[in-house]
């Protein structure tokens, strides 16, 4: 893997900052991302927009370390020095890592223990996270019997039980009703307020007024 992750000197105020310089990613021999650069400070959100095939998901997967970078660098500055970027990131995509045979509670409890190895005061308990996304009443139901929107809410609860500063969200609002979107917008604002960073690829407004945006072009 030709990842080039640098760890510069942390900024003076100790806040976290994500810096992406000239990021290039190829998929199937085609250059999908060509020299993308941006930076994001703690508490900020970035909305990635663009037509289908513009490379939104590719950008998020590359940031999560799931795709190799063909060029450029990704650096998360100001975090714990011994933890690599993917281990400080939550990645939420269409497939959500929930086992349909297990209950909502069992799935979340597993990801809590698997993704949050160091306890963090900003992590919620499973019950609290389920209450935030409005699934408290069906915590004991298997994921397989949930509706698409409820499954998505269970996946969003995963972001809350294990605190990780960087949220990489690929179409987070899919299948969510209006109430759930508003609840999730509140959760995102709280995440930003507690020093988190959010990068979301979406076609729909997230409900974050202060979010900056990055428009990826069409197929080049």
């Amino acid at each position, binding site marked *: 893997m030709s990842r080039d992750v640098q760890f510069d000197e942390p900024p003076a105020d100790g806040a976290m900052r994500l810096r992406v310089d000239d990021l290039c990613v190829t998929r199937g021999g085609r250059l999908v991302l060509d020299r993308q650069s941006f930076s994001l400070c703690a508490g900020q959100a970035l909305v990635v927009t663009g037509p289908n095939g513009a490379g939104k998901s590719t950008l998020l997967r590359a940031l999560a370390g*799931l*795709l*190799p970078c063909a060029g450029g660098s990704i650096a998360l500055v100001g975090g714990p020095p011994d933890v690599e970027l993917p*281990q400080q990131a939550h990645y939420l995509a269409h497939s959500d*890592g929930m086992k349909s045979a297990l209950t909502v509670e069992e799935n979340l409890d597993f990801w809590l223990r*698997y993704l949050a*190895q160091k306890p963090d005061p900003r992590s919620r308990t499973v019950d609290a996270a389920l209450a935030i996304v409005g699934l408290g009443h069906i915590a004991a139901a298997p994921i397989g019997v949930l509706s698409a929107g409820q499954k998505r809410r269970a996946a969003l609860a995963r972001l809350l039980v294990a605190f990780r500063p960087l949220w990489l969200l690929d179409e987070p609002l899919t299948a969510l009703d209006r109430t759930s979107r508003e609840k999730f917008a509140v959760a995102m604002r709280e995440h930003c307020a507690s020093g988190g960073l959010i990068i979301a690829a979406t076609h729909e407004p997230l409900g974050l007024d202060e979010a900056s945006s990055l428009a990826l072009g069409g197929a080049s």
Partner: protein
Amino acid sequence: MSALPALFLREWRVARRIGGSGAMGVVFFLTLVAIVPFAVGPDPNLLARIGPAILWIAALLATLLCLDRLFQADAEDGSLDLFHLAETPLELAVLVKCAAHWAATGLPLILAAPFLGLMLQQERMALVGVVATLLVGTPALTLIGAIGAAATVTVRRGGLLMALLVLPLTIPVLIFGVSAAEAASGGTVPFYAPFAILCAITLAALALCPFAAAAALRYLGE
């Protein structure tokens, strides 16, 4: 370090709840053993002689039958992506998944083996030999099979391809497993010689296979 026990528990629960893959493996094992006398004839002496080999081949096929979804289910539901983001190395996750898979599907086969051995006219010492060799040898089958399961993780309906990849690699396990099982009920070879080599193969698989499978998963994940 609560991540690995949590992963074991999750895999165990999923294996127990989805279609009872352990029970399915045992039924497949039973079917294979039961059809052999129809093919080779109901001669007690012949069955007593080839019994350990039949039990071993049946256990090998039953193990492979259950293995093809080991990583594919995780790839489809996105868990595999999240494993990459965890602090726990992928190699350890592979090892724990294999351990849970063996506990859910390999152990039932071993528990069923003495009863099926009675159907094949096995004496008491031969039954002990078969159970002992299966207990030591089936973890190696699961671990070697995990490499095949990882290499075919992106292939839809990759079960047959996985079997083609893995079966040649399991030949040493089969050779020393069967010869130790046969040596247990008499013969010219002492029991301990092939049994020790079988143990060595399992230990080597334990040390090497998680790395190979994790490397395949990393490569295919990109």
